[in-house]
């Protein structure tokens, strides 16, 4: 006990003498050398000297020259596993070699020479014609003039060709200079890059390549041989084999695949026609209900309701804007057609929300389900709308309901994603607290998860609405009605006036819906 009581004191005083102040620290080269040697493998002595020089540099670029890197260039980089260096300098070296190749064996004036030959042949033809005309006793001067002109043009082409050929030396010299600069850069820069790799290797020795690896040398060699000679050949030789310029595609593959796919889609459409028809019927009923409310009801009623909704949810300014936008639409005679657009968007959003929120809840709770669904969601969002319009026509025909289905494909992912995100963001401790007080899973969902995920879900609904709006013009391509159709017709006849008027009508509808919805969500927060 007494020993233990005294020990810390002596220990402390002893240690005070041993600790070196930061300003008096010496560089421990031996330990660093050992580490560098482990990293570089071959030529440890050279690299530790080079790295020390880099480490000792206070400012600017450290001056070290690596002969191996300069001479072997990309191959050195490949062997050492510095792949960024490999690709960068491989491309630069190929550019230099292309110049050298063009200067030495490239037929630089070949094209102009061929042109001159063609022009001379043509001139000779005209001369013969002139001879024939003169023999017939007519005036040959017209053909003689043509022939002379062509001869002069041929002369100019020949001069161009000669000038180009004279340029060859110039190009060769440029190429050689470029190669020299590239080599110099490689020599100067390689150690700096390699030292960076060494620093990364110290952090993660398993992932960063160290030493010279034979398989890397082989890979670098194969890549260089596969890329460099063909590229140099393509850019220096005049008559390149057609095998290199165009991919030898077989058109039969294309027609065969297209025909097969078409048959498959037709068969599927015929096989599932009952199911597809009932989907279309369901969508049409939702659309009809919304349309009836918006178009069937007298327009003053609908306008008043929309303005009041705007006022209640987003305040007086949005209400005034809404009134003005509605006036624009109505005065230009777009009323019915604009309400059709609103009905289309409304039906799509209703279906998106009704299907999307439960799916989002499921994906939020089950990591596995989400992993499976994520590629599908990505596909739905990234696939250009034009691509899936075709199968939609095949399966569901044309008109408004198929248009709504296309809109759903594009619009549903945000509400699913953000619902799942919101569900996963609910704090575990609150869920745990609820279950500690005896809440059932349903009660936890209803009382904790949904209320806490609501802001995220609402953001998702808002985004879905905007996505659906942006699809409205595109679905007119498959016979969807509404303002999109106005735009499509204007586009087909390049009708500028109607196109712009209709475009503004769409813009106002979109802004109206966006402002009202955003205002409503902001109020709730």
């Amino acid at each position, binding site marked *: *006990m007494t020993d233990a009581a005294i020990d810390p004191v002596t220990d402390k005083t002893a240690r005070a003498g041993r600790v070196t102040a930061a300003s008096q620290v010496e560089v421990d080269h031996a330990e660093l050398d050992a580490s560098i040697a482990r990293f570089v493998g071959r030529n440890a002595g050279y690299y530790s000297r080079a790295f020390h020089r880099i480490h000792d540099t206070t400012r600017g670029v450290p001056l070290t020259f690596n002969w191996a890197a300069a001479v072997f260039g990309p191959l050195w980089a490949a062997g050492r596993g510095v792949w960024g260096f490999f690709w960068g300098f491989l491309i630069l070296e190929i550019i230099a070699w292309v110049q050298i190749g063009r200067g030495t064996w490239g037929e630089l004036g070949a094209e102009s020479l061929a042109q001159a030959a063609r022009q001379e042949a043509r001139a000779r033809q005209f001369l013969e014609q002139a001879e024939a005309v003169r023999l017939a006793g007519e005036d040959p001067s017209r053909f003689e003039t043509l022939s002379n002109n062509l001869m002069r043009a041929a002369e100019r082409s020949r001069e161009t060709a000669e000038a180009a050929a004279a340029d060859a030396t110039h190009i060769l010299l440029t190429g050689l200079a470029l190669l020299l600069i590239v080599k110099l850069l490689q020599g100067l820069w390689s150690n700096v890059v390699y030292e960076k790799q060494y620093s990364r290797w110290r952090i993660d020795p398993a992932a960063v390549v160290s030493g010279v690896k034979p398989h890397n040398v082989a890979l670098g060699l194969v890549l260089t041989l596969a890329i460099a000679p063909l590229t140099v050949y393509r850019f220096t030789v005049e008559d390149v084999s057609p095998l290199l310029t165009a991919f030898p595609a077989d058109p039969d593959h294309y027609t065969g695949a297209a025909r097969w796919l078409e048959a498959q889609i037709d068969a599927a459409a015929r096989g599932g026609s009952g199911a597809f028809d009932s989907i279309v019927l369901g969508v049409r009923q939702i659309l009809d209900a919304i349309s009836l409310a918006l178009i069937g009801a007298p327009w003053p009623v609908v306008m008043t309701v929309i303005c009041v909704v705007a006022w209640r949810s987003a305040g007086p300014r949005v209400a005034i804007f809404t009134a003005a936008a509605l006036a624009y639409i109505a005065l230009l005679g777009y009323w019915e057609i604009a309400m059709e657009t609103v009905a289309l968007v409304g039906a799509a959003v209703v279906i998106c929300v009704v299907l999307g929120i439960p799916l989002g809840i499921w994906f939020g709770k089950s990591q596995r389900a989400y992993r499976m669904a994520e590629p599908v969601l990505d596909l739905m969002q990234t696939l250009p709308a034009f691509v899936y319009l075709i199968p939609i026509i095949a399966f569901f025909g044309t008109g408004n309901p198929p248009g709504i289905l296309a809109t759903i494909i594009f619009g549903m992912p945000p509400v699913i994603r953000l619902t799942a995100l919101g569900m996963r963001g609910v*704090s575990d*401790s*609150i869920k*745990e*607290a*609820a*279950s*500690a*007080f*005896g*809440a*059932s899973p349903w*009660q936890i969902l209803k*009382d*904790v998860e949904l*209320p*806490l995920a609501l802001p995220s879900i609402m953001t998702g609904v808002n985004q879905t609405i905007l996505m659906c709006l942006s699809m409205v013009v595109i679905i007119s391509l498959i016979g969807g009605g509404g303002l999109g159709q106005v735009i499509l017709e204007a586009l087909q006849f390049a009708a500028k006036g109607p196109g712009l008027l209709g475009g503004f009508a769409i813009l106002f509808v979109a802004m109206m819906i966006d402002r009202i919805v955003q205002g409503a969500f902001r109020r709730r927060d």
Partner: protein
Amino acid sequence: MRVRPPARDAGGRKPSASAAEVGAVAMSETVVELSGVWKVFGDRTAETLAAAKSEAISKAEALERFGTVIGVRDASFSVSRGEIFCIMGLSGSGKSTLVRHVNRLIEPTDGTIRVLGQDVGAMGTQALREMRAKHIGMVFQHMALMPHRSVRDNVAYPLEVRGVPKSRRWAVSDHTLGLVNLEGYEDRLPQELSGGMQQRVGIARALASDPEILLMDEPFSALDPLIRLQLQDQFKALVDELRKTTLFITHDLDEAIRIGDRIAIMKDGVIVQIGTPEEIVTRPADAYVREFVQGISKLKLVKAHSIMEPLESYPGVINGAPRVDESADLDRLIDLSVGTDDPVVITEGGRDVGVVTKSVLLRGIQGGRS
């Protein structure tokens, strides 16, 4: 030390209380009882458990060999009605994991948990929910209040879960908020309140269904020191008055000593020592506990009987010396010693049983006996 009972038979016992347990309704009635509880996290729990039982492999070995983490290792204790039982340990020692077995927020890998005489492990989901809602209140380190509900609705949630009508819920909730001095805040949202007030809401919520048992998971750790002291005193007074059986988790030994009737010290999932605060401080079970106890002030903790020397060592009759009962603490002994040159005589039931000289007292304050 209690002997671990044999492992639960495969069929599981009936959830109803046995006759013996029903009969033992007394001051020392056992409310919560854990025997041989193990918790292993990971996929290969069965293998780990077998290896840990037969070869006593360590936490690190389990992680290396099976990729599993032993959270709780063979924990057994029982808590009687009205007792405050503190579980003290550093973060990662498994104390939060252990206490979550009581309301089965965490399923044990092995062992039995009995609450109010019922085997919690054998309960169906409905019975378990009933037990949680009616008999166990829980308070969390990060409050875990629902941010979208008013303070009143937060407190009323355990009742709402059970389907208690709103009028009654609100009445009970307002009453319980009164117990923690939060009148007037019923209609606020939790985030409008300070941290200390939020945790008082948490305590009110735990008390709302008038449970027999309170589980306190580091309730005061996130609060600043002054508020913490205040809440500890309020909490202790409240629980003593309501006679709630309490399992109180903390990483702060001072807090455990202030609040606890008994303390269990945990290290790496193992309960190292169980005892009263005085036992823990005066007779630490091993070096680990001793290190903890070192900085603790013993003045209010160590009682006269644990430092006094036998009467025989002072053969002379000390008539003028001050006398005090053996349950007096060091603080009191200092007060008495200051006024006299004589040693203090310790009595038990009016009879002289020992003496405390000034040197003994100083050693006692220091904490050592040598």
